[in-house]
């Protein structure tokens, strides 16, 4: 697919002669177009293409007998490296260690919290789900139902304040010998000052070793704006990209990785608790490039 497109593009450029420096520049621009079509945010596409590709699409390609193929391989490999070099595991501190889930409305935080609970349970941990979304109608019902299905305890508390709920959850976890807290927070707009302040306060009170930004995998240009805004208000230690069981190209992966510098730790690939996979940068690169 992509190889054909580049081969065709390169063939048009070459005419009869060898590939020139100018041709390489044109190819770089074509790569940027492909990224935009794959929903990579424009600043991320520019940064990656100008910063990374320009230097790597050098002499190797100019002297290659199959420059189109060569270019695709370089772009793919550079993209995979950029998306996530070394594997980044979840971070834990002293028990009960908190993991805080944050993100925009409807991105998949609550569902991902349950998925993480199952993931950790299967690895011998004893998680406690914490229902700290006090806003959304039936949010507590939702996480309680998920917890019940997984046989994972859920702390709801009787307070309306997320900070109080988190504190109560920690005490409860200690009393029950549970070793990690998965704290689900309410969806919010990054431009809602009141809600972002509430989140910053919650994080300061909980001091989690792990704060995961849960982002919708089909997000387009807004990915850089929203991720940057969250990064400015709370410490982020990892990203989860959801709903990648669809046909979205997933350019948001590059956008969010670029603007936050944080590792993408997991991807959501369905609605069931088992539908969580560790992030594979190589596979994601292939998906973005189409």
């Amino acid at each position, binding site marked *: 697919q992509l190889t054909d497109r580049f081969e065709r593009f390169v063939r048009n450029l070459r005419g009869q002669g060898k590939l020139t420096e100018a041709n390489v520049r044109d190819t770089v621009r074509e790569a940027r177009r492909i990224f935009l079509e*794959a929903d990579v945010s424009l600043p991320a596409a520019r940064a990656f293409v100008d910063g990374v590709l320009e230097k790597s699409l050098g002499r190797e390609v100019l002297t290659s007998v199959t420059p189109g193929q060569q270019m695709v391989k370089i772009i793919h490999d550079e993209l995979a490296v950029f998306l996530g070099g070394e594997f980044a595991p979840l971070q834990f501190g002293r028990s009960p260690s908190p993991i805080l889930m944050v993100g925009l409305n409807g991105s*998949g935080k609550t569902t991902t919290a349950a998925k993480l609970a199952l993931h950790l349970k299967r690895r011998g941990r004893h998680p406690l789900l914490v229902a700290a979304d006090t806003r959304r109608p039936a949010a507590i019902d939702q996480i309680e139902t998920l917890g019940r299905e997984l046989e994972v305890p859920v702390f709801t508390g009787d307070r309306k304040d997320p900070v109080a709920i988190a504190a109560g959850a920690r005490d409860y976890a200690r009393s029950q010998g549970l070793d990690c807290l998965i704290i689900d927070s309410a969806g919010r707009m990054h431009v809602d000052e009141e809600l972002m302040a509430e989140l910053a306060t919650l994080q300061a009170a909980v001091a989690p070793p792990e704060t995961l930004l849960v982002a919708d995998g*089909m997000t387009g240009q*807004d990915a850089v704006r929203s991720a940057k805004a969250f990064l400015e208000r709370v410490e982020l230690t990892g990203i989860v990209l959801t*709903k990648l*069981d669809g046909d979205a190209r997933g350019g948001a992966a590059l956008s969010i990785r670029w603007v936050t510098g944080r590792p993408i730790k997991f991807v959501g690939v369905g609605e069931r608790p088992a539908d969580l996979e560790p992030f594979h940068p190589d596979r994601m690169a292939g998906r973005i490039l189409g």
Partner: protein
Amino acid sequence: MLTPGKIDAEVLDELETALIEADVGVNSVEELVDKLRSGRSTHSGLDPAALLKSELISLLDDCQPERPERFTAKPWVILLAGVNGSGKTTTAGKLAHYFSLQGKRSVVAAADTFRAAAVEQIEEWARRGGARIIKQSSGADPAAVAFDAYQSARARGEDLLLVDTAGRLQARRNLMDELAKIGRVLKQLDPSAPHEALLVMDATTGQNGLSQASGFTAAVGVTGLIVTKLDGTARGGVVVPIRRELGLPIEFIGMGEGRDDLHPFDAKTFVDALLD
């Protein structure tokens, strides 16, 4: 002195960037800007931004914010569909409230029988919107809930039936079949139903929105869009290629989590935001 054929290249570049960053998509942006560059715009004027806005407003303006045919059947059936988390359930409540201000009585069909606490959530939203709710037990056939709700609304002479469905990705064949079945069941009850099938789409959606629109249209004949979460920084520009390729109008926009945060689509306001 600028004329449409001689627009400053730098200004056009800036406009191109703004449109790309608003999710209008590379193809549509190129076509729109080339049209300006070559002076083929049907609008006259000197300011390229104003020209572009005119083009977009003409494209998106459906000229009838309040559809005259709405409520010409009883109950008028609006089916809400869309991908996971787009805002369907919230919007169902908002719509019930919106039409209650016009004196319309609504019934909501809780046809998401799959997701955890989906029924509890829509029960609360129906309450907020002043609507009656029809629900069944978890795991029930969504088409059966839609069927029951229609019969009930019909029996009680209610004006509007809002069918809330489970989120689903258009690439999932079996889920699109389930949605198609809901549509067929409604059609059996009233050949013109669902009278409206609205695709509820998150404003942050990228170009996948086009695939969503065509996938959902194939399943259930989408008649229009509702773009939600426009109270953020996303501009929902993917409605431009959707309009160009599929001709779908935008009916409403969602501007927040409250029941009043729903507005009929206004092309001028939307396009102004697109370019700002």
